[in-house]
C-alpha cells in the first residue's frame, strides 16, 4: 500500500510540475510540439492518479490510525518532530488531493487562489513524504520483505491484511476504470463516474468556459469582428478574409488541465502564415488575445516549435466552430494545455 502510494504521489508531483511548465515555460526552453499527445498523457496521468490516490490514502491512514494514540506521544525530541511532520503530511495531502478533485468538478469553496496553493502545497506534501520515507526506511524495507499473511493479524476473525488490500485494490480499481475514460478513450464505455463525457458535448468536445461565462456572446457574433495582426507589417482581416486563407486539417488532442482530453479534427489557416505576413517567422514569440475582457487566460504566448504548428481553427470535427468552442476563431496547438488554446481570438501580436 505504502509503495503504491509513494509511486502515485511521485507521479502526481512530477506531472504537476510538467503541467505548471506549460503555463510558465522558460524562454530558452519552450514547450515542444511533439509528441502531440504529450500533455494529454501527463495531465491525464496527473488527474487519474490523483483521484486514485484519494481512496488509497484513506485506507493507509485508516490502517495506521491506532498509532495516533501511541503513549507517550513521543519518546524523544526527534520522534516528536517526526510525528509533527507526519501530521503536516496528512493534513497537506488531504487538502491537496480533495481540492484537486474539487477543481476537476469546477467547485471552489475555499478562500484562496487554487492554482497557486495547489502548486506550493504540492512541495509541502512531497517534501514531507520524502522526509517520512527517510525516517521509516528500515521499517519499509522490512515490510516489503515480509510476505502477506505471515504477519500477526490484529483481527484474526475480521478482514485480514490481504483481504483489506484486495478490497482496497478493488475499490480503487473501480474508481480508476470508471473515471479514466474521460482521457483514455478505450475506457470511455465504462466512464460512469467520469466528471466529463465527450459524447454529450457539442461537436464531441467538452467545453471549459462557455461564451456566456466569458461574456463574449454579443461581440463574437458581431459582423464587425476583425482579427488584428500586429507586427512589423500590421494588418487586419474580417471573417471572410480569414476563411479565404488556405486551410490545413489536423487531428490534434485538446487536453484540459482538469484531466479530460479528446482527439478532434481541426481545420483552419496556420498561425505561421499570418505571422510571416506580419513580418515574423518561426523564431518569433507570439501573443494571442481573446475577446474576453477578464480572466487569467484571455491571452497566451506561443514560442518555439508550437508557433509553426499552431492552427487558427475555424472548423471542429467537420463543422463550423460553435460559439462556445470559440467562434469565430480559436487557437489549437499540439502538446498544449487546453486553456492555453485561446478561444474567440481577436488579436495576434508578433513580438
Amino acid at each position, binding site marked *: 500500500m505504502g509503495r503504491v502510494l509513494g509511486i502515485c504521489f511521485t507521479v502526481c508531483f512530477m506531472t504537476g510540475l510538467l503541467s505548471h511548465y506549460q503555463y510558465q515555460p522558460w524562454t530558452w526552453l519552450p514547450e515542444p510540439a511533439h509528441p502531440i499527445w504529450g500533455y494529454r498523457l501527463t495531465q491525464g496521468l496527473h488527474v487519474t492518479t490523483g483521484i486514485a490516490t484519494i*481512496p488509497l490514502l484513506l485506507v493507509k491512514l485508516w490502517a495506521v*490510525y491506532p498509532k495516533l494514540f501511541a503513549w507517550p506521544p513521543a519518546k524523544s525530541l526527534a520522534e516528536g518532530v517526526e510525528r509533527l511532520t507526519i501530521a503536516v503530511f496528512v493534513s497537506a495531502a488531504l487538502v491537496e488531493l480533495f481540492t484537486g478533485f474539487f477543481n476537476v468538478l469546477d467547485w471552489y469553496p475555499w478562500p484562496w487562489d487554487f492554482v497557486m496553493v495547489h502548486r506550493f502545497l504540492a512541495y509541502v506534501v512531497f517534501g514531507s513524504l520524502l522526509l517520512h520515507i527517510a*525516517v521509516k526506511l528500515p521499517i519499509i524495507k522490512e515490510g516489503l520483505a515480509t510476505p502477506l499473511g505471515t504477519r500477526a493479524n490484529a483481527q484474526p476473525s475480521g478482514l485480514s491484511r490481504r483481504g483489506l488490500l484486495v478490497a482496497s485494490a478493488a475499490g480503487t480499481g473501480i474508481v480508476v476504470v470508471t473515471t479514466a475514460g474521460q482521457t483514455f478513450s478505450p475506457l470511455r464505455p465504462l466512464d*460512469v463516474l467520469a*466528471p466529463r463525457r465527450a459524447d454529450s458535448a457539442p461537436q464531441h468536445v467538452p467545453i471549459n468556459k462557455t461564451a456566456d461565462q466569458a461574456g463574449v456572446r454579443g461581440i463574437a457574433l458581431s459582423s464587425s469582428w476583425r482579427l488584428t495582426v500586429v507586427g512589423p507589417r500590421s494588418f487586419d482581416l474580417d471573417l471572410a478574409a480569414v476563411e479565404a486563407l488556405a486551410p490545413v486539417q489536423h487531428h490534434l488532442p485538446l487536453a484540459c488541465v482538469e484531466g479530460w482530453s479528446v482527439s478532434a479534427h481541426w481545420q483552419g489557416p496556420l498561425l505561421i502564415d499570418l505571422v510571416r505576413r506580419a513580418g515574423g517567422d518561426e523564431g518569433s514569440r507570439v501573443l494571442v488575445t481573446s475577446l474576453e475582457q477578464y480572466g487569467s487566460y484571455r491571452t497566451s504566448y506561443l514560442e518555439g516549435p508550437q508557433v509553426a504548428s499552431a492552427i487558427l481553427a475555424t472548423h471542429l470535427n467537420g463543422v463550423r466552430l460553435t460559439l462556445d468552442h470559440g467562434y469565430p476563431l480559436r487557437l489549437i496547438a499540439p502538446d498544449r494545455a487546453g486553456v492555453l488554446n485561446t478561444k474567440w481570438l481577436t488579436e495576434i501580436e508578433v513580438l
Partner: protein
Amino acid sequence: MRTRLALGTVGVTLLLFGVFRIFQNSDRTNPRGLARWLIAAVVIHDGILVPTTMAVGFVLTHLFRPRMRRYVQGALVASGLIAIIAVPLIDRRGSQPAVKALEQQNYGLHLGILVVLVFGVAGLAYTAQVVLDRRQAVNATNVRPPAAHDSDT
C-alpha cells in the same frame, strides 16, 4: 544511512520551499484560511470519518459471524472508497451548463449499480468459500486411519 540522509535533506528542502512560497504570496494563498482547512481536514478525518468506520465495524462484529463478516467488510471497504469519489459528483450534478459536458451523468444511479456489483461479487466469493470449507470438512472426516500395510516397519 546515506540514502536516508539524502531523502531527508531533499524532503526538508521541498517542504520549507513550499511553506516559504505560500507565505511569500500570502495575498493570493491566504495562509490563515489555508491553515483552517489543513486543521479541519485532520479533524474531520481523524475525528469523524475514521471513528464512523470503526463504529460500523463494531456493529458488524455483532451482526455477522466471522466468515461472512470478512466479505461484508471487504465489500463495504470497496464500496466506501467508490462512494468517496461518487458523492461529490452526485452533489455537484447539474451545477454547470450542459454544453460543458461536466457532471451531467446520473452518478447516484451509477454508484448504486457499482455497489450492487461489488456486493454481488463478494456474495459469490463468500458462497465459494462456504462450498470450499464444506468440502474440506467432508474430506477431513473421510480420512482413513492408517492400515497395518501402510507402515514400512
